Structures are given as structure tokens and as C-alpha cells.
């Protein structure tokens, strides 16, 4: 009996040890960013891995206080909010029409969305860039907003259509029978039920836009037009001898994501893994 208990205890300890090691590996780079951002450059050069024994906010203050970082943050914010708003609205109408309107070809429409979700954006880059040049939109935020919105639509349609399938058809029919038009049904019946799903979708899309690098790098080459991530990627080369300063910038770009994650982790998990399975 003692042997069984002992084996069980060993198994339990081994499992937790394994999970703790994995967790530490997942968290260490994050700790490295935070601790380095709080060190002076001199402290970092002396002891890069140590605990920040004389924490200073000077790097963070330099980053947030001086241009161009605040400008980049504002750009990222504007781009994220507008792209997500546009794609969500477009997808909301389309997914509603596909699930409850069942227009001719709605099945093809939905499976096209699923296929487009995984088309690598890099393959679309050259023609889109030429398109933006022709219209003089390069270095203007609308270039990335328009492209991002379009890129997000397939996932948003897929996600919302999957959610709408779980809404009981009787509710819709009951409202229609009472004479409500399709838009009223969407607004009065479907949308009040979709709060959590819509929030999840918004979070996932916002993370995608906030984190996007390639398109931002190509479409917004002007220093003042950059998004936070594209700007940071340039910073890395420019301040290669001041790691605390660059990582203070990195911390600023990570902070909103982490705060959002801590406040609604289950929404993230559900949304980001929605592309798999049901």
C-alpha cells in the first residue's frame, strides 16, 4: 500500500516539476523584458541577468515622453480600432445573412472564408503595395486600415457564423413572424445574444492588428506614420547599445496585450483557438 502511495506521490511531483519548468521557460523572456526595462544601461551592461536592485523608470520615461514613440502608439491605436470596427461590422452582416438568410451559395461563401483564413499575407503584398502607390496612400494610415480590414473579414465571418449556428432558429422565426425586418431581428434578437462572442472576436482581431509587422513595415515607411511594432523593429538597430531603452519600448508594446489577457484570458483562449475544430 505504501509503495502505491509513494509511486503516486512521485508521479504527482514529477508532473508539477515538469509543468513548473515549462511555465518558467514561458515566463522568463517576459521577466527579462520587464527587469531590463527597469535597469539603467550601466547596470544592464554590468549584470544583464540580475535582479534590478536599483530600479529606475528613466528608460520608460524617455520612451513614453519623447517622440516618436507616443506618435507610434497613437497610430497603432487608430489602426487597430478602425480595422477591427470595419471588419467586425462587415462580417456581422455577412455571417448573419449566411446563417439566417441562407442566400444561394452561402456554403461556398463560408468555406471560402475558411480557406482564406490561412492565405499568407506576404503573397498579397506586392499587388496591394502597387495599388496603394497608385492612389498615393502609402505612408497614410488608411492604406493599412483598408488592407487589414479585408484580411480580417474571413476569420470574422467564420467565427460569427459558427456562433450564430448556436442561436435557436425559433427565436429568429418568432421575431420575423411578428413582422420584424431582418435588420431589426439582427439588432434586437441576435446582437444582444452575441455579447461574449463579439467581445472575443474583437479581442482576437485587435491582437492580430496590434502585433502585425510585415504590412506595416512596407506600407508605412515614413517615421511619423509607423505603427508601434514597425517602429520598434527599427529602434532595435538604431539603439543597439542601449538594451534597456529598446526593451522599455518593447514593454510598452506588450503591456496593453498582457493587461487585456489578464482581464479576459478565457476570451483569448476561446477566440484564438476558434480556427480549430468547431
Amino acid at each position, binding site marked *: 500500500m505504501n509503495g502505491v502511495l509513494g509511486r503516486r506521490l512521485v*508521479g504527482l511531483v514529477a*508532473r508539477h516539476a515538469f*509543468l513548473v519548468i515549462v511555465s518558467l*521557460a*514561458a*515566463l522568463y*523572456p*517576459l521577466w*527579462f523584458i520587464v527587469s*531590463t526595462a527597469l535597469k539603467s544601461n550601466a547596470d544592464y551592461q554590468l549584470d*544583464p*541577468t540580475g535582479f534590478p536592485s536599483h530600479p529606475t523608470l528613466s528608460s520608460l520615461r524617455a520612451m513614453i515622453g519623447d517622440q516618436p514613440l507616443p506618435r507610434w502608439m497613437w497610430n497603432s491605436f487608430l489602426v487597430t480600432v478602425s480595422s477591427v470596427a470595419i*471588419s467586425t461590422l*462587415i462580417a456581422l452582416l*455577412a455571417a*448573419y*445573412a449566411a446563417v439566417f*438568410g441562407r442566400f444561394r451559395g*452561402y456554403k461556398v*461563401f463560408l468555406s471560402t472564408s475558411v*480557406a*482564406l483564413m490561412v*492565405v*499568407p499575407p*506576404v*503573397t*498579397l*503584398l*506586392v499587388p*496591394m503595395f*502597387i*495599388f496603394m502607390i497608385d492612389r498615393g496612400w502609402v505612408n497614410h494610415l488608411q492604406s493599412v486600415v*483598408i488592407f487589414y*480590414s*479585408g*484580411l480580417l*473579414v*474571413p476569420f470574422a*465571418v467564420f467565427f460569427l457564423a459558427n456562433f450564430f449556428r448556436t442561436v435557436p432558429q425559433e427565436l429568429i422565426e418568432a421575431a420575423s413572424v411578428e413582422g420584424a425586418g*431582418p435588420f431589426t431581428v439582427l439588432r434586437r434578437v441576435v446582437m444582444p445574444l452575441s455579447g461574449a462572442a463579439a467581445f472575443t472576436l474583437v479581442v482576437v482581431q485587435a491582437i492580430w492588428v496590434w*502585433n502585425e*509587422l*510585415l504590412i506595416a*513595415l512596407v506600407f508605412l515607411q515614413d517615421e511619423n506614420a509607423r505603427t508601434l*511594432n514597425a517602429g*520598434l*523593429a527599427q529602434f*532595435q538597430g538604431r539603439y543597439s547599445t542601449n538594451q534597456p531603452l*529598446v*526593451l522599455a519600448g*518593447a514593454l510598452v508594446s*506588450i503591456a496593453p496585450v*498582457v493587461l487585456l489577457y489578464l482581464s479576459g*484570458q478565457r476570451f*483569448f*483562449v476561446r477566440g*484564438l*483557438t476558434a480556427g*480549430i*475544430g468547431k
Partner: protein
Amino acid sequence: MPHEGTRRRRRRRRALWPYLYALPAVGAMGFAFGYPLVQVVRDSFYAGSFDSPIWVGLDNYRGVIDDPEFRQSLQNNLKLLIAVPVMLGLGLAIALVLNDRIRGMRQYQAIVFLPYVLPATAIGIAFSYLLQQNGVLNTALRDAHLGALGQDWLGNSHLAIVSVGGLVVWQQLGFGVVVFTAALLSLPPETAEAARIDGAGWWSLQFRVLVPQILPIIELLTVIQVITVLSWVFNYVYVLTSGGPGYASSVMELYIWRSFSNGANGTAASVAVMLLGMASVLIGLSLWVRRRAEAL
């Protein structure tokens, strides 16, 4: 309440509104995907600047295939495929351990998933400081008197792509964990219970009973992660090594970006078309595998 007859008639006539509601989405997808997908194929047959393109037939493709930089890039994408079994295997192991109703399961899962949501740029910068010649990892190894294990992780032309692969695994691992955990939790408990009563040990329970049941999900995730390492790794490479040293750790996406930055639009387009060809095969495969996974 409308009369039975009118209701039936209304149902027979196809309503117009669904088409109107779907129109903006069709337009957006046509603009962001349809137009560039057609155009990129066309562009791949032209050379020169985009305001005065010259028809060159298949020359762009020939040039690319003969270019050692492209071959290296393609090879690196293929090398990164090794990251797929690593992250899925490790992810599955973690999910199976979590599935034992272990205490703190939610917390572990939240921590392991966190890297997946972070911007690759910030993370890539941090990893570049960790992995530099005089970076944190080598310093730590020296301090532990393991200096012999120290390597120029980013500057060595063989190791640079390995470091990129490590970063990909680090960031993508949690995705597999969460997907597998959800799949395991959705399994009916009866089969596992029956196996336990039959005296199955832990290992045979995992690999004879549980894993076979989530096989369709494993297949789908494999296809999706293969697509990821072939065509969604630009951020990692750009920030961690910029494709260097030289072009030793370049990938197809970076090659497209570089050609394009040098004004060689036709070259960039022809590589984009090749990448698209590979991706299409995999996307087709993913649709097929997805159907089986959804039946689970």
C-alpha cells in the same frame, strides 16, 4: 400572424436582403484576396518597375530557382518544419499531464498560452539580446562553468535558423496545449474509465485510448502549423536575425520582402506565386482534415 398561404409563398421566394448583407464582405474579400491573388500571378511574368512593366515570361521563375539566396531561403523553411513535431509533441505531453485533473491546471494553461498572444517583434528583440554572442544565455553558461556550451546563436550561419526555430516553438507551444487540452476534455469519460477498469496503466491509457481519439485534431493542427512555418515566420526572422549572417537564415517571406525592397517586383511576385502554390496544397489538405476533425 400572417396567413399560412402567404407564409409559404414568402418562403418560396428568395429574399433579397441576404445578398445585400453579404455584399460588403464579398467585396472586402475580393479586394484584399481576390484582386491581389490574380494580380500577383500576372506580376510574376513581368520585370521592371511597376509603372513600365516588361513581359519576360518565365524568366523571373528561372532567375529565382538559380538564385542561391532563394534556395537557401526555401531550405530554411523546410528546416523549420522540424519545429512542428517538436511543438506539437511537447504540447501534447503538456496537455496530457494537465488532463490528469492536476491542481492549478487553469493557471498552468494560462501561463503556457501567454507567449502566443504577445507581439513577435518585442519578443524577438528580447530573444536577440538573450542569444547574442555576449548575450544573456552565453554569459549564464560561462557563469555556470559551462562556457564550452556557449555558441554564437545568431551569428553562426548554421545555428541562426535553429534559433529562429526555437523562438517559433517558444511562442507557438501554448496554442497546441490549449487546443489539445480542450479536445481531451471534450472526450466522453466512459472509455477512459473502462480502460482503467481493464487495468490499463498511465502510458497505455494515454497512447492507446486518449491520443487515438483526438487524432483528427492532431492532424489538423499539424497542417496548420506546417502552413505557419512555411509562410508566417517573417516577424521572427526579421527581428531575430534579419536573415543573417548574410542570407544564412533567410526564409521565403524574407526573400520576397528583400526583392521587393530592391525594386524587383517581378521576382518577389514569382516567389509569392510559388509560396501560394505550396500553401494552396496545404490549405486544401486542411479543409479536408478539418471536416474529419469537426466530425469528432
